[in-house]
C-alpha cells in the first residue's frame, strides 16, 4: 500500500478503490471472489452470500458484484442513477466482535480520515422479500451521505442464520464520486490516469446505460421474459427434486442446490425486467415476489442438506 503509484490511489481511481478494498479484506482473511456470472439485483444474491450465510460453517469472502436494477436506468441522463452498477460485498460468518472497527479500517484504507469526516451508523433494517431474508444494521453515513450498508443477517431463505453473518455492502460509484469529488458518475476517473490515458466511467458505461435503458423500458421481449420466468421456475423445482437424496441411500445430501439456485436468480432477474417494462400489475407483483421467495426458500433448504450447508461429507 505504501509505495503504490498515484494512479492507484482510491481517491482518484475507481479501480484503485476496488483494488484497495479487495486488498484490505484479503488482509482480514477473506476469500476474494470474482463476480458471480449471472445477472443479479444486488451482491447479496451471489451464492457466496445467500447460501453461505446458511449453515454452521465459518465463511469469509469479499467480491465486487455488478448489479442490475432495470428500473433504475435513466438513459444515461441522471448523474446519480444507473441500471448497472457495482457493489462491493463483504460477508463474515460468524461476524467477528470487532466488525464495526474492521469496517472503519476499510474506510481508512480508502482514504477516509475519521478525524475529518463524520461517520455515523444510522438505523436501517434490511429486508429482501424475494430472498425471504432480513437483518438488522445501519446505513453508514459519511458526512451525511450513505456510503455502505451494514447488516447482521438474522434470516435467509426463511431459515434462521446460526451463526449470524455480518454483511457489508459498499456502493462503489457513490463512494468513488465522493472520494474523487465529482458530481456525475460518468465523470469518475476509472483508471486514475491523466490526459489521454485517462478513462472515465462514462467512456466505459455510458453507452451501455443508454442501450440497456432502451431495452429495459421499451424493447425487452415481454412474452419471452414471461416464458423464461416460468422456465426458470420449473427448472429450479426440477433440479431441486432431482437433487434430493435418493430413498434408501446412505448419502442423505442434496446434490444440486447450486444449479437450482441459479434458476432462482434467473427468475428474479426476469421479474425485475418485466417489472421495469411495466407489464406486472400491482396485485400480480406481490405474487411474483412470492413465487421467487418460494424458490429461494426451497434452495436454502436444499443447501442446508449439502456439505457447504454443514452436512458431514
Amino acid at each position, binding site marked *: 500500500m505504501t509505495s503504490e503509484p498515484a494512479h492507484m490511489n482510491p481517491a482518484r481511481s475507481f479501480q484503485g478503490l476496488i483494488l484497495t478494498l479487495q486488498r484490505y479484506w484479503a488482509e482480514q482473511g477473506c476469500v476474494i471472489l470474482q463476480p458471480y456470472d449471472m445477472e443479479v439485483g444486488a451482491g447479496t444474491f451471489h451464492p457466496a452470500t445467500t447460501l453461505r450465510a446458511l449453515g*454452521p460453517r465459518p465463511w469469509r469472502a469479499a467480491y465486487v458484484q455488478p448489479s442490475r436494477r432495470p428500473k433504475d436506468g435513466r438513459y444515461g441522463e441522471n448523474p*446519480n442513477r444507473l441500471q448497472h452498477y457495482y457493489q462491493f460485498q463483504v460477508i463474515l460468518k*460468524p*461476524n*467477528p*466482535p470487532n466488525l*464495526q472497527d474492521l469496517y472503519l479500517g476499510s474506510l481508512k484504507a480508502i482514504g477516509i480520515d*475519521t*478525524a*475529518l*469526516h*463524520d*461517520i*455515523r*451508523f*444510522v*438505523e436501517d*433494517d434490511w429486508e429482501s422479500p424475494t430472498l425471504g431474508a432480513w*437483518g*438488522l*444494521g*445501519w446505513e453508514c453515513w*459519511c*458526512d*451525511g*451521505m450513505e456510503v455502505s450498508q451494514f447488516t*447482521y443477517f*438474522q434470516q435467509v431463505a426463511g431459515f434462521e*442464520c*446460526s*451463526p*449470524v453473518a*455480518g454483511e457489508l455492502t459498499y456502493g462503489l460509484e457513490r463512494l468513488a464520486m*465522493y472520494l474523487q469529488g465529482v*458530481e456525475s458518475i460518468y465523470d469518475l476517473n476509472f483508471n486514475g490516469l491523466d490526459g489521454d490515458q485517462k478513462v472515465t466511467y462514462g467512456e466505459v458505461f455510458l453507452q451501455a446505460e443508454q442501450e440497456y435503458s432502451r431495452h429495459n423500458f421499451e424493447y425487452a421481449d415481454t412474452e419471452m421474459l414471461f416464458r423464461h420466468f416460468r422456465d426458470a421456475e420449473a427448472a429450479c423445482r426440477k433440479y431441486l427434486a432431482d437433487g434430493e437424496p435418493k430413498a434408501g441411500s446412505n448419502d442423505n445430501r442434496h446434490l444440486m442446490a447450486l444449479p437450482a439456485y441459479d434458476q432462482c436468480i434467473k427468475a428474479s432477474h426476469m421479474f425485475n425486467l418485466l417489472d421495469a417494462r411495466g407489464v406486472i*400489475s*400491482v*396485485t400480480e407483483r406481490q405474487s411474483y415476489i412470492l413465487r421467487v421467495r418460494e424458490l429461494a426458500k426451497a434452495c436454502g433448504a436444499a443447501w442446508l442438506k449439502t456439505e457447504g450447508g454443514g452436512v458431514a461429507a
Partner: protein
Amino acid sequence: MPDLLLELFSEEIPARMQRRAAEDLKKLVTDALVERGFLYEGAKAFATPRRLALHIAGLPVKGQDVREERKGPRVGSPEGAIQGFLKGAGLTSIEQAKIESDPKKGEFYVAIIEKPGRSTPDVLAEIIPAIVKNFPWPKSMRWGAASAEPGSLRWVRPLHSIVCTFGPETEDPEIVRFEVDGIATGDVTQGHRFLAPGEIRVKRFDDYAPALERAKVVIDTDRRKDMILHDAKDLAFAQGLELIEDEGLLEEVAGLVEWPVVLMGSFDEAFLDIPPEVIRTTIRANQKCFVLKHPGNSSPLVGEAGRGVLAPSSESAAPIPPSPTLPHKGGEGSSALANKFILVSNLVASDGGKTIVGGNERVVRARLSDAKFFWETDKKVKLEDRLEKLKSIVFHEKLGTQYERVERIAALAKELAPIVGADPALAERAARLAKADLVTEMVGEFPELQGLMGRYYASLQGEHASVAAAVEEHYKPLGPSDRVPTDSVSVAVALADKIDTLVGFWAIDEKPTGSKDPYALRRAALGVIRLVLENNIRLNFASNPLRADATILIFARLLQVAHLYRNGQLAAFKRIGEQFEGRTFPANDSFDVNTLTGTPVYGAETIFVGHRAGEIKLRSGSLEIETYNFELVGRFSSLAEIQADLLSFFADRLKVYLRDQGARHDLIDAVFALEGQDDLLMIVRRVEALGRFLDTEDGRNLLAGYRRAANILRIEEKKDGRSYSEAPDLQVVNDQGQIEEKALAVVLAKAKEEAAAAVESEDFEGAMRALSRLRQPVDSFFDKVTVNAEDPALRANRLRLLNDIREATRTVADFSRIEG
C-alpha cells in the same frame, strides 16, 4: 447510602428507541428491587447511541433481616418428632432451640430462624441478567459466534460490555459480578468512538458522568437536545436567520450523536424556487437537517403542509402505523426559507468541520436537484391528465383502484355540495383532482407531501382557489387536534372522501376491532363528525332511501355496491332490491336507480338496469349491458345491516368525541336512546340543552319527580302484571280527581304539546323550558295525591298520569339513562 451504576454498552442503538429503552431499563430494575423489598432514594436512566445507563441512588447495603419463630414438639417428644423439627428448622442440635411453655401445651421447643437480609449485590446479580435477557426492544437480534447456539442473547445491536458497580461514596464500590451470555461485568467503558477512543475505568455515577463528558460523551439526551437547539439558534442568529424548530427531528438527531457539533451549510439560492415544504421535507427526511428562514417575511406560497391520509404511501389502503408522527404545524412555510441548513455532526473535526459541511452540502445539492427536477417535471402535466394513471393504483384489493375511488368521491362530493353550501361543479372538480398528485414524481418520492403538492399544481394550472384548497384539505382533519376545513368545497370533498372510505370498508367487513384500526376508520369517522359539527352541517345519515332527498349514506352505499358488483369481487347482499325496502320489483324488471334518487348513481353514465336474485345488470353508457353474478359473502346479509352497523359505529365515535369535549356520557346515552337519532348536529344540540337544563333547579327537581313517577310505575306495573301506557282519562280526573291532579293533567298536556313543537322546530332550549313548567305541579301531585287510591279506576288513571310524565320527558331525552 450506596449507589448502583449500570451501563450496557453496545453498537449503535436506533435513535427512535433510545428514550423508551432507558425508561424501560429504569422501570424494570427498580420494580424488581422494590418487589424484593429494596427501596431506593432516586433513579435516573440515560441513553446515547452506544449505551444505556442507569443510576440508582440510596440503595441499602443489604435487605432486611427476617426473624421467624417456629413452634416445635413438646419437650420429651419421641426422637423422630424432634429430628423432624430440627431438620425443618435447619438446626443441628436441639440445644439450639429455645424452650417455652404455655398452660395448654406445657413445655415445647421453639426454633428461632434468622434469615439475614441478602446482600444487595447478590440481588442485583440475580435480577439484572434476567432483565437484560428479556429486554423489551421493539426489534432485537443475535450476533457473533454465540449465535450458533439456540437461545443466545438478543439485544438491539451487539452488546459489548456491562459496567455494574455498587457501593457507598466513601469507599471504592465493588463490581457486581455476573455474566450475561459470556459478557462479564466490569468497571470499564468507552468514550466517544472517534474523539476519545479507549477504555475508561469508572467507579460510580459521580465520576462516570464527568469521565464520559471528558471523553466527549454527553449521556443525557435532553442535555444533548439543549446543546443542539442552543447552538443551532446561535448559528442562525449570527446569520440573521431563524431556525425552524422541529421537535421530532431534534429528538432524532440527539439520538444520533454522543457529542453534538452543530454546523451550518448552504445551498444554491436557485433551489428556493421549489416550494418550501418540499425543501424542508427533503432536507429533513434524507439528511436529518434543520432548515432556516428569514425572520418576519411572509410566504408567497401555500401556508400549511398537507399530511398523509390513509397510508404512509397513501397510494394504497395499506395498513398505517399506529401513530403517524409528522408533527409540524404552522411555522413552516410561513416565512421565506433561507438557502441555509443546520446539520448536527458527531465530531469535532480537525479542519473545523469544513469537510463535513462540504460533504453534506453535496448531498443536499443532489437531493434538491432531484426535487427541482420533480417539481419542474410535474408542472408540465395537468392534474386531470394524470387521472388515467390512477387506474394502475390499487386502493384496496376489494375496493378497486384510486381511479374508481375518485369517480365515487366526485359523484358524492357533487351530491353533498348543496347540503354544505358549496358549488356542486367546484366540489366535483376538486374531488376529481384530489388524488391526482399521487402519481406525481414529487409525491412518489415524498408521500407525506400528498395533497399539498396537489394544491400547488392545481393553483399553478389556474384552478379556482377553493378547488386548489380542497385538493389539499380534503384529507383533513387527520386527528383530534388537526384543523377542520371551513371552505365549503373542501368540506364537501373531505366528507365524500371519508364517507367513501367508511362505507367501503364496512361493505367488505374490514372494520376496526379492539386496538386494531389499520385503515384509520375511527379517525375517518371522527373526521366526519368534526366536519359536520364544526361547520354546523345538517346531514341526515339514515333517512329513507326512497325519499327524494335520498341522503348521504344510502347514496354512498349505492355507489359502493355498483362498484363492487362491477368488479365482480364482492357480493355482500342477497338481493339488490333489498335496498329499496318497502317497494317491490319484479325479478326481471329493469329499473333505473336514477328515478329513485333523482341523480346519477355511478359516474354520469352508468346505471343499474336490472336485478334478480344472484344477478345484477349494469348499463355503461348507452349500449353495453353487463351482467354480474354474485353470492352472499361476509358477515352482513343486507345493506340495512351494514347501515345499522355503521351508524352505531358513528354513534360510538360521537360519544367518544362528546366525552372528550367534556359532555356527560349519561346525557349522551339519554339522547341516543331516543328513536331515529341520525343527525349529528341535532344530537349534540340536544345533549347541550339537556345538560344546561339539568344544571337548573327546575331541571333537577323535574328529574327527581320523573324518578319518583318511574319508580312507582315500575313497582305497580310489576305488581299488576300490566302497563299503564294509555292516555289518562280526563273525565275521571275531572270527576274524581283532586285539585293537584287536575292541575297536573292540564300542564302535562300543554307541556307535551309545547315540548314536541319546540323539538320539531329544533328549539331544544324551548323544549326544556316547556318541561320545566311540570316541576311545580309534579311536586304538588306527589305531596298531596295518593297514587294507590282505593278506587281501582282512580288508581289506574293516576298511574297513567305518572306514565304521562315519563312520556313528556321522552320528547327531549330518555330520563332513565340520566345518572347522578
